[in-house]
């Protein structure tokens, strides 16, 4: 399997997916060699059947390029070069591993455009069937798609034997790239129940910190696609009706300066807390504090954080344009542009203990059905189909 990131070096759903999926597959007795750009060592606890093989050194994360053309030009060439370097080194590493261990790989699995060129090379070098997963497309990541990346994605969509999309929504986007619909399969992400369902923070500590205030949470990259701007506009409306409410914005991204000045010009800066990047451990704590989780994304291929929040027992308000809204029932869905509706639902959730309680209970039940075990089973089915078994 060809990946780009792995905990603790994670900046998006791609890393979580690769980590959880490889573990779940390994538990099913599948042997996986996971190639990733440097830093893989020490990243993961030992799992039998899973070897992490660092193949190239790069510190570039998949989401570093952004919608502002200036910034992209700076990182862009480096990133493309890194992707190419990773592809070449993956090819030679795969050849080396195959020769050294005398093992016969059954399938090569690439994730997103970052590892797509590597997938193509490995598949040719070892004559393997290629499975390509799309966690997002360039259309989801930016309003100004970059032609070089679109080119790689189009090629990947055409080259792969089978394509996995993380939602029907993403499937549609990949079809836009020119993929043959007969090659498309949908495998939804899961959530690690144990990680989020247990209380990591005592109720007393939580209540002590909140002092009666309600907490509404945003967690994600601060980019246009994740909808933090709508979140602040909705916050302004909620605060008109419920002045003490606290709005937490967790995550970093190019919109941070804009959001900070926006919170000031809206006159709500006292009630908005920017947390910056939060670690895995802190993320779990934050969920425990939240009375509502809002995912106002304008374009969300899946949205694993919604499952994490539900798993933690937090009532969730989701944008309709998200993949996760295809799998969960116990969430409130809104149009990302409908600030009034969003604010109204937030108000209702934080004001009605009954609603909060029912959503929390049913959300946990929903999330329990979304397991990585299931995702691994379905991925395995795709492998078997690709390998003709």
């Amino acid at each position, binding site marked *: 399997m060809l990946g780009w990131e792995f905990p603790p070096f994670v900046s998006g759903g791609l890393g979580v997916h690769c980590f959880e999926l490889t573990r779940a597959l390994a538990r099913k007795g599948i042997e996986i060699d996971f190639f990733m750009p440097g830093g893989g060592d020490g990243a993961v606890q030992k799992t039998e059947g899973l070897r992490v093989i660092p193949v190239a050194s790069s510190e570039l994360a998949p989401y570093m390029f952004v919608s502002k053309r200036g910034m992209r030009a700076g990182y862009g060439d480096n990133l493309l070069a890194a992707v190419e370097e990773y592809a070449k080194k993956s090819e030679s590493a795969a050849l080396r591993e195959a020769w050294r261990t005398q093992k016969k790989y059954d399938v090569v699995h690439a994730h997103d455009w970052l590892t797509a060129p590597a997938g193509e090379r490995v598949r040719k070098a070892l004559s393997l069937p290629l499975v390509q997963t799309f966690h997002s497309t360039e259309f989801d990541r930016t309003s100004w798609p970059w032609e070089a990346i679109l080119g790689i994605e189009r090629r990947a969509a055409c080259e792969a034997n089978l394509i996995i999309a993380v939602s029907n929504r993403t499937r549609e986007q990949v079809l836009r790239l020119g993929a043959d619909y007969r090659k498309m399969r949908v495998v939804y992400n899961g959530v690690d129940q144990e990680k989020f369902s247990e209380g990591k923070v005592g109720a007393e500590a939580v209540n002590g910190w909140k002092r009666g205030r309600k907490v509404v949470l945003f967690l994600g990259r601060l980019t246009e696609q994740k909808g933090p701007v709508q979140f602040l506009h909705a916050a302004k409306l909620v605060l008109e*009706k419920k002045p003490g409410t606290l709005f937490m914005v967790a995550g970093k991204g190019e919109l941070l300066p804009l959001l900070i000045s926006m919170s000031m010009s809206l006159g709500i800066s006292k009630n908005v807390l920017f947390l910056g990047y939060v670690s895995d451990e802190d993320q779990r704590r934050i969920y425990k504090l939240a009375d509502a989780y809002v995912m106002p994304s304008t374009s969300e291929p899946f949205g694993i954080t919604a499952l994490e929040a539900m798993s933690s027992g937090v009532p969730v308000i989701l944008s309709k344009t998200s993949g996760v809204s295809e799998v969960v*029932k*116990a969430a*409130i*869905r809104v149009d990302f542009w409908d600030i009034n509706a969003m604010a109204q639902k937030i108000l209702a959730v934080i004001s009605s203990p009954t*609603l909060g309680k*029912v959503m929390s209970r049913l959300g946990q*039940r929903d999330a329990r059905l979304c397991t990585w075990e299931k995702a691994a089973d379905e991925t395995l089915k795709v492998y078997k189909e690709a390998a003709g078994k």
Partner: protein
Amino acid sequence: MEICIYFQVHQPMRLAQYSVFGQDPNCGSYFDDDLNRKVMEKVAGKCYLPTNRLMLELLEKHPEFKVSYSLTGVFLEQCRMFSPQVIESFAALAKTGRVEFLSETYYHSLSYLFANKDEFIEQIKLHRKEISAFAAPSGVFRNTEAMFSNDIAYLVERLGYRGIMAEGLDHILGWRSPNYLYGVKGCNGIKALLRNYRLSDDIGYRFSAKWWSEYPLTAEKYASWLSSLSGDCVNIFMDYETFGEHHWADTGIFEFLRHFPGEIGKRGSLSFSTPSELVSRIGIRDDIDAPAVTSWADMERDTSAWLGNEMQREAFFALEALEGPVKERKDEALLRTWRMLGNSDHFYYMCTKSLSDQDVHNYFSPYDSPFDAYINYMNVLRDFEGRIKEA
């Protein structure tokens, strides 16, 4: 063997999307007239008008054919507002003298479940008055969604009813057949008409189900099933929207209905009766005992479709708590609004049962989720509470 056919006819008054950020939330109506009109016009065109036309034809062609209905007051009000020809077509059926219109609560409400039963009784009286405009009042009662218990039977018996509809539930009947009339424990002679849910659902649910081993169902096959039954009567009750709405015209449901009376007529052992005729002619075989409220809704066949979760119960108790304040104001418009907010449908939309039943709730719901249903309802109710205080 008497065949008793009965159809439930109802359309809820769906609420408008209420906004707490509206400019003047108090000025608008709580009800979504556009949506309600659209639904009424659609269902009138697909179901009510064509089915009534066919019924009239069948009643004219087959002098032995009889059917019965219950039309909710909320339905009749919406007919008047959006589709008056539907009322005329029901009135035409009534004129044949072989169509019975049963008694029920005007607002298709859960009012029996209020601690104080006065509102329940008032709504029954309102409904009787409404129906008597075009048909003779019936001596048989049908509570909202066939809600039934010993206590309900006892109460309506005291109001003068001689018969009451109920679901023919296995746990109430035990080894006994639904195809007889039963007395009710603790009552003094009121007769319970029990729905034969298997035969009713063969039409209501399974008619167009391709997975069903009996698919396709013809009138001839169905009549032969009925003629092989033993018992005094068979009660086939369902939603009227079965025709043309739940099963579209292209499933052949209208053809089924068209041939049904003729197929029954061919079999000497079968004849049609209205509920009142059953109650007058057939004696009881035994008593049934229903200490808890049963209904025909969902798999559970109890009140959990409306009061199964905390949101539903909170909304229901909040509504109930407004009864006193509303009635003190002696304002007809306020009272009517409060009663409309008591449509059982509002609570049905808040149901969170999963699996197949939730799909039925979703199918009928104008909301995206039960949570949205609860939020909107509570916002409206809170606004309404303000109106009462101001009045």
